């Protein structure tokens, strides 16, 4: 069986005249953590939307475990959006039940443990939670699934350094063997040590990609330094 979880081949996407993704190709193999890096507006979120089946009219080929994005692949991919997607009128416990209802791979025990670890009260309405707590709850729901591929869109944007550590350890401790993570971010210094591979997107094109360690050795710099060099104004 192929160990390729995600394959993106020559993907392009236009919004009217504006081409936001230009012939993007890369793949994510099993047991890898891939950093999808790029400044705001480089096409990271558009690519993630395509992988999650939130955008249809694009050119090129995307396959997740050999299948095009659709109902089936949504069972394989656990997605953490870059915004609060849970209905505010739900309580935390009802949100957990919602995930358990829809996702066969949802681990209720893990969710309850994570809620305790992240100190999220199960009886509160989501609307009553602070921004940080909402982000923790979303992360808890995302990482409580035993998915093949975790797609995390800017999981540490807008959180303080202490919370970043909690988020990163939650991610690392809860993704299982045989799974992979595709994580988009523009805050690199704090997380670059966890990446096995990196893909640098610039104006919708893949500028640099490869094994993180090889890139460091080849360029004689950290990924953060490389990023700053590529995106120097």
């Amino acid at each position, binding site marked *: 069986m192929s160990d390729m979880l995600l394959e993106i081949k020559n993907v392009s996407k236009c*919004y*009217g005249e504006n081409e936001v993704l230009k012939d993007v190709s890369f793949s994510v193999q099993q047991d890898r953590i891939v950093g999808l890096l790029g400044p705001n507006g480089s096409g990271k979120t558009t690519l993630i*939307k395509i992988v*999650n*089946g*939130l*955008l*249809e*009219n694009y050119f090129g080929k995307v396959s997740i475990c050999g299948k095009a994005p659709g*109902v*089936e692949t*949504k*069972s394989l*991919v656990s*997605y953490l*959006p870059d*915004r*609060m*997607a*849970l*209905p505010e*009128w*739900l309580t935390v416990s*009802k949100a957990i039940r*919602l995930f358990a*209802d*829809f*996702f066969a791979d949802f681990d209720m025990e893990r969710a309850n443990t994570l809620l305790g670890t992240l100190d999220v009260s199960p009886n509160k309405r989501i609307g009553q939670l602070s921004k940080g707590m909402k982000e923790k709850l979303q992360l808890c729901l995302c990482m409580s699934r035993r998915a093949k591929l975790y797609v995390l869109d800017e999981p540490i944007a807008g959180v303080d350094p202490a919370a970043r550590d909690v988020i990163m350890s939650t991610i690392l401790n809860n993704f299982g063997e045989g799974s992979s993570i595709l994580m988009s971010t523009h805050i690199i210094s704090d997380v670059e040590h966890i990446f096995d591979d990196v893909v640098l997107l610039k104006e919708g094109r893949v500028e640099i990609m490869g094994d993180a360690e090889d890139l460091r050795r080849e360029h004689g710099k950290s990924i953060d330094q490389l990023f700053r060099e590529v995106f120097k104004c």
Partner: protein
Amino acid sequence: MLGKLLKLDITFGWKKFLALAGAVILAGIILPYLGKVAVFGGSLLLIIGVVVIGALCVYTCVQYFRNNLFGSEGYLMFTLPVRSGSIVASKLLTTVLWFNVMFCAAGVALIFILKYSSKEFIDVFFVDGRWKDVLQMLLFGNMIGIPVIAAVYLAVSSRNITVRNRPLSGVIAVIIAVVCLWLAIRASIWGVDAYTMSGLCDSLMMKMKTPQGNEFMFVWMPQLIGFAISMVFTVVYGILTNLIIKKRLNLK
């Protein structure tokens, strides 16, 4: 999965709509006493109440549809392992449910008001089989209401057609809403009219009996034909909504 989606959608609205239905029934109980002071004032209050509650229901449903599918909640809804058609169907079915809850509440309120004004009302209503008129009204209400709901949802979804041009998308949505509403209502009423005028009515009247054994004629067919036409429109609008979501979805 449709069942799970229905559960989610009903969870959102049941408290709000039951509260609104309760308010309508309460208005039906209280208004006759207000009407005693001034009959005209009572009727005016009833009309205002019905309009305000109706507007609140429409606003609640449309806002929920918009936020849940095209707002940030769309990032959750469209990454659930369900077909977009099931999501649209669930929204339509739930709104039809709330529409009927409110319609029934208005019916109960009306019974309270009429009961107050006429002591014989209950006898006439239940013994003479007038409740069947209420059922006919419910059918007629659904005939008009269901395609209207589907047309409004289609119009809301159509804003995705030109997602990067908000003013244009607004104009498109309004045009679609007006055309679809007119088409559905006109066609349904045309169905009723055409049937009634065709002269087939007599042969398809149902003979009903009251508990006292009195026979009377009851006409169902025109409403059923109108209802069938309006269902065809509802299905077409639902399919178009799903098509827009599938092909043109572009969450903010």
